[in-house]
């Protein structure tokens, strides 16, 4: 069980880092703001 929970923890934070990248990509290429 320890291995499972440690793996789950690592997996969650790895996914969270991917989520950071996903949110960053969503912002790429968006049109510049208008005045």
């Amino acid at each position, binding site marked *: 069980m*320890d291995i499972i929970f440690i793996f789950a923890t690592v997996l*969650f934070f790895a996914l969270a880092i991917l989520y950071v990248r996903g949110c960053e990509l969503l912002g790429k290429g968006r049109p510049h*703001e208008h005045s």
Partner: protein
Amino acid sequence: MSANGWFQIGVFLLVIFLITKPLGVFLARVFSGEKTFLDTVLRPIEKLIYRLTGIDESHEMRWTEYAIAMLLFSGVSMGVLYLIERMQKFLPLNPQRFANLEPGLAFGTAASFTTNTNWQAYSGESTMSYLTQMAGLAYHNFASAAVGIAVAVAVIRGIARKETDKLGNFWVDTTRCLLWVLLPICLIGSLVFVSQGVIQNLKPYTTVELIEPQTVQVTGADGKTTAQTVTQQVIAQGPVASQEVIKEFGTNGGGFFGANSAHPFENPTPFSNFFQLVLIFAIPSALTYTLGRMTGSQRHGWAVWAAMAVLFFVGVTTAYWAEARGNPQLVGVNQAPISSQSGGNMEGKEVRFGIANSALFATVTTDASCGAINGQHDSFTPLGGMVPLINIMLGEVVFGGVGAGLYGIVVFVILAVFIAGLMVGRTPEYLGKKIESYDVKMAMLAILILTFTILGFSALAIIKPFGTSSISNPGPHGLSQVLYAYVSSAGNNGSAFGGLNANTMWYNTSTAIAQLLGRFFMIIPVLAIAGSLAKKRIVPESVGTFPVTGGLFSGLLVATIVIVGALTFFPALSLGPILEHLLMAAGKSF
């Protein structure tokens, strides 16, 4: 309700109002790197920490780097806590020789304390060694609070700065928060608690002879019930005062004892109760002033504070009214407040605190993401118990958790100005920054993760035996128990409704996942908003700019928070506490 009760609630709000500016100014100075009266002592310590850890304090981070640093810090420290819990039997400072925690409970607790939730599916005094309490849990009380405040400061910088992609340095913000804000006040606060009678020691538990032996019925392994006479009682000891202060000041909420702030060793006097309430709201309230000061719009900070104060007042009034009117099914029982009793619905409440202070505590602890309790929310009347539930459902932005309350309400501010912009047909602006589709998308991601987590897990738990088997009351009250567990977890509150057996593999793991999602999958889009805002240039105010400083803005902000919360959770509330209230009026209780 009594004049005395209202007086205490009024004094509490006044004290919070009075400390908002001085503490807010101090926070702004700390995170802007300005001079403070503590620099002489703390600056050399700070420099030493950076030298030992190789941190370049002049390095500024983009939002992505800030977020990844925050995630790595939290992930590693969560793993360390898990290992401490799993090995406590072999580690020192375990005079009661408590066994290692089961893996599911260790995982749930590690996630809980890392996310500032402090949901406890155990009683500390019968589960955790002193080392686990101090090096594991109390460490996270400080660290998770510092992380929340650091994120809030990064968000404020995102609003305040222009045409840059830098939000500050996560390591510096966390270190300065710990050294300048949390540790000094907790040192003083713990001494205040000791002065009130909160214990602080590392002694083994004390066994005392009962003055009056008790006869209890005990069911053995064979199912037979026998009578046993109990002549001794074990009184738990421990380093309570040092953990009590950060429990509230960091809006953590995890009690040293299972009874939390209802335990006389944690909360012995009316003053300690009042002090705990002030500690919970101190930083969240002050951060609104910090927001105003760092963004150069003090009136905006106060407008946000006013919106929070209105929602707080509505909540505490409802809870106090609901509890003070008593239980209508107790026909013929005097439930009026008189000199010898508090009156009202006293089930599950401490006689020492009465109705007003129990209702106030329940409101404050769930407005903020604290989760400490001084009475059982499960025993509140249906409408009284619905107040803590709604407070968390609204996103805990009524002052909120340390840091979490501020970055949470910034999400609603983005939505409010977006809605205002739609209504008048202009591009929405927030303090000179144009709010664009990306900002609104990120705001919605931050809000929807809570909705998805709470309603998804609750739905699963109430249709499957692994979820329903833990419910202790049937009908709508049982639904409230399950709903509250996931609301409290995803909202990183940590208070328990009570009555739900949460120490099962399903609840330990599912609440842990809810806590992790509710914390980090909200922070990430919020930091993305901060990064996006920081890049924008300031556009001058025009006649079409919606002001974010006056009563109209505060009103719109309140309406946005309430409407989003109501649209999301009203169906679940109507099947839980609202239905229970109607059935109670018809003479049926659960």
